């Protein structure tokens, strides 16, 4: 049996859920993003079959400003998926923490930023210093 009508999920984007709903959505999008990168990664590793030089010549793509920006998105996705996943695991094993669940989302945001910001700066800085 299917849900009521097609597009219910899309309509759901208009539902005023709280932190839990948006972190769930971001978790999904980040997960898909990581999966997409995995496909790309398998492909670029596969290029080594064409010889070391071809492979290394193509690495400039990842060092380009656009490539670095892309990497920051990747770090964002992996890190968010991981930290958010941990929050969900904690809440699932200790259902009694429910009363604090909104606060836990903000704890998660802080933990995420503490790791993400420095890594993002390190990844992006060569663009500006030209290293």
């Amino acid at each position, binding site marked *: 049996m299917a849900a*009521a*009508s097609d597009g219910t999920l899309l309509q759901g984007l*208009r539902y*005023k*859920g709280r932190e*839990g709903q948006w972190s*769930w959505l971001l978790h999904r999008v980040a997960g898909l993003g990581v999966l997409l990168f995995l496909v790309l990664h398998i492909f670029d590793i596969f290029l080594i079959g064409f010889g070391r030089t071809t492979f290394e010549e193509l690495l400039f793509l990842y060092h380009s400003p656009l490539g670095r920006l892309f990497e920051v998105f990747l770090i964002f996705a992996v890190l968010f998926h991981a930290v958010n996943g941990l929050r969900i695991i904690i*809440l699932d*094993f200790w259902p009694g923490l429910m009363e604090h*669940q909104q606060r836990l989302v903000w704890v998660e945001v802080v933990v995420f930023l503490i790791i993400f910001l420095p890594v993002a700066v390190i990844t992006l800085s060569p663009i500006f210093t030209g290293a």
Partner: protein
Amino acid sequence: MTMRVHVKVRRFDPDTDQSPWWSEHDLDAEPSDRVLDVLNKIKWEQDGKLAYRRSCAHGICGSDAMRINGMNYLACKVLVKDLGSNITVEPLLGLPVIKDLIVDMELFFEHYRSIMPYLVNNDPVPTKERLQSPEEHERYDDTTKCILCAACTTSCPSFWATGDYLGPSAIVQAHRFIFDSRDQAAADRLDILNQSSGVWRCRTIYNCTSACPKEIKVTKAIGEVKKALLFNRF
């Protein structure tokens, strides 16, 4: 102090409408009016065709759950002053619309019936009541408050994705019996909830908990059922 409110209502009449549309209404309301009063006023004074369910008007029967300013509420419980002067009313998500704000609840009740929502006890019937200590009752007291309004189930993204999911309400009802010391069918209910349409579809999103008009700790109850399954303890 009377206030002027602008109300938008999502309308759909399968007999005449190709697709849903919005009707808009301006009217005076008291800040202490409930959205149900506002809907009544619209129906009685402006548009007699407007269709919605209500019965008790006091948050007991669970018939008037709907989406108000984007979130599920009972129309008879939410006050105009808490919403402001712009009010948007839509039917519950994830169930087929029959007309305007009335949705077909059959799927919801089918899920409810599937978890055996009744006491199972095959011992000889005692001459007096089946005794239970206050502590034993406390274990599931919270989940006895459910009024089957469907506000939680229709706020759940997992239920929007597939109506197969039994949904928060059915799990709350199951919780009410699984943790009742007088009941003997907990294992059967846990078996049902262990299927792919059961508790594991819950992604711990908490929409259900915010939506419950009875303030049941829905996600906590679901979590307790998950743990009962995981550790085989209940």
